[in-house]
């Protein structure tokens, strides 16, 4: 007897189980995104782009048109698609290294140009695919493969405040929020709004999601959850930062 696990309609059943490590947060983010796509009825309109890094493992995850791009380059690829065919709903999915380091110029300029795309950036404080190196989002004191004695902010700076930066350079009409896999309902709500804002033609939509990487954090379940739920929000404030008037604020 086989048990059919509940999964979003927009997921591709024949490519499941997905390819992420046990305990990885990507599955939760992509499930929330799948449910948001289902609820908005946009499966036939979405063009989904995934970056290099662990996010590329989602290249066949959805039953939606998908492009797996290069490290940091998902934002311009989806921008190019959306500019060429404004009828599609463009989603650029990436990690913190792709969005804040190698592709930061694309994020900044796409936001400044108010591109009508939705960027979902998963922040798990390090480079997962390459084996756990320090990222722009690595927490002060956090040990990674390239900060083996802990990140020293004197030498390598403080974690990038992505949504705060995007909010600062976008005008009214943009949607900017930080979610966490520790609050799945809220996360789905933010991702859905980031899509709704594109559908209504509002403007650039950006959600950073705090996520887990027990493989490279070398943490057990309890420590993993403690890090994402308690430690990360000390630096990365969860909530909506910029909400267009057309969208309701959370909890109102």
């Amino acid at each position, binding site marked *: 007897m086989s048990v059919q696990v509940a999964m979003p309609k*927009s997921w*591709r059943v024949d490519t499941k189980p997905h390819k992420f490590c046990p305990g990885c947060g990507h599955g939760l983010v992509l499930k929330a995104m799948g449910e948001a796509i289902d609820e908005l009825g946009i*499966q*036939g*309109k979405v*063009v989904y782009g995934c970056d*290099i890094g662990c996010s*590329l493992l989602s*290249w*066949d995850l*959805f*039953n*939606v*048109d*998908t*492009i*797996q*791009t*290069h490290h940091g*380059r998902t934002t*311009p*690829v*989806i*921008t*190019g*698609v*959306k*500019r*060429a*065919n404004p*009828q*599609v709903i463009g989603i650029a999915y990436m990690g913190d290294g792709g969005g804040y380091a190698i592709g930061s*110029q*694309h994020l*900044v*300029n796409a936001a400044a140009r108010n591109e009508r795309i939705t960027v979902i950036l998963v922040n798990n404080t390090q480079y997962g695919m390459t084996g756990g190196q320090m990222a722009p989002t690595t927490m002060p004191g956090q040990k990674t493969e390239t900060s083996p004695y802990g990140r020293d902010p004197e030498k390598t700076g403080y974690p990038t405040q992505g949504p705060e930066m995007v909010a600062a350079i976008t005008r009214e009409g943009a949607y900017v929020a930080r979610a966490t896999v520790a609050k799945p309902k809220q996360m789905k709500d933010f991702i859905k709004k980031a899509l709704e804002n594109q559908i209504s033609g509002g403007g650039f939509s950006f959600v950073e999601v705090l996520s887990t990487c027990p493989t490279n954090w070398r943490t057990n379940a309890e420590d993993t959850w403690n890090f994402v739920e308690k430690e990360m929000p000390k630096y990365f404030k969860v909530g909506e930062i910029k909400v267009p008037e057309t969208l309701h604020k959370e909890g109102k």
Partner: protein
Amino acid sequence: MPEKPIKGEKRYFMTGNEVVAYAAVMANAEIMYGYPITPQNEIMHYWTRMAPKYGKEFLQTEDELSAGFTTVGGVLAGRRAFTATAGPGNTLMQEPISMAEAMRLPIVVVVQQRGGPSTATVIYSQQEVTLTTLGGNGEGFRVVYSTANHQELFDYTIKAFNTAWKYRFPTFVLGDGYQAKMRESLTMYDPEERGLKMVPTEAYVGKPGVPGIDRPPGQYRNTYNVEEEIHEVVQQYTKEFNAIAPEVAEYESFGTEDADLVIVSHGVVYRAVKEAVSELREAGMKVGYFRPITLRPLAEKELKEMAGRAKALLMAESSVGQMTRLVKEVIYGATADIHTLYKPGMGISAEDVAARVRSIL
């Protein structure tokens, strides 16, 4: 809205960059993505002036990485999309071009070569041959047309879109700063009126219907898990590229049958060579020329035959042998002496060529 700026055939006197912009409009290109760099800027200038009149789009990106990747996005959306660059911009653009190669995406890139390495000059060179033909981490699955004059800039810009969409390999028009900035006469025309049909475009993503219900999803990747997978892909691409090479490859030659010396050159240098050869022939010297129009793929068979017959070859180019390396690989085994006239980053005149020939013969 008028459909096109040119009806019938008309003579014009204009710069090469302007010609490229007109050619793209006449080829029904739909969107250009670009980033400023000399000497290609005026392609964007003329495109943006014409764009709203003919229903075209333009996006100025943050850099050439983005210009290349947005162009990739444009063709994925099924649009006749292109970009233009030069020098250090061409260096950055190799990353998106390698993705286009890996995924067989029909992007069109116009390169107006400037001096190198590094920032160098904004004027002229033939130093982007290696980069344009074989750049990126790949095998050079691309088509490169090296133009010599404004008529060719017009003809081959139109042709580049058809080559790209027919064979699905990234396609380049390789010009240079002289061609970009110089004014020259040419005939512009509507390709359709000449019976030249534009190869239809096709969307990779965003097609009608719901994926998984009405149709399979379009899912495109350039990442592979195991050696065997990528090996198979590259083998297949190699086979297909080699198969189309003979029909894609173009060249011009003159007097190679009886020549004591054949001059090999491409692009704008070929103009000097052509003039020199006619002068030297008049003086009774047995000199010919061979000019590859496609630098990738090369007209291998014809080059081999020519080099097999010739007693001596003179390689003339505005670089330190970038074209020569490509040609040597093809003519390996030929016994002709190889002489060179290399002027990296500088123009070559008919007098330069004639003087070099006289020093050899």
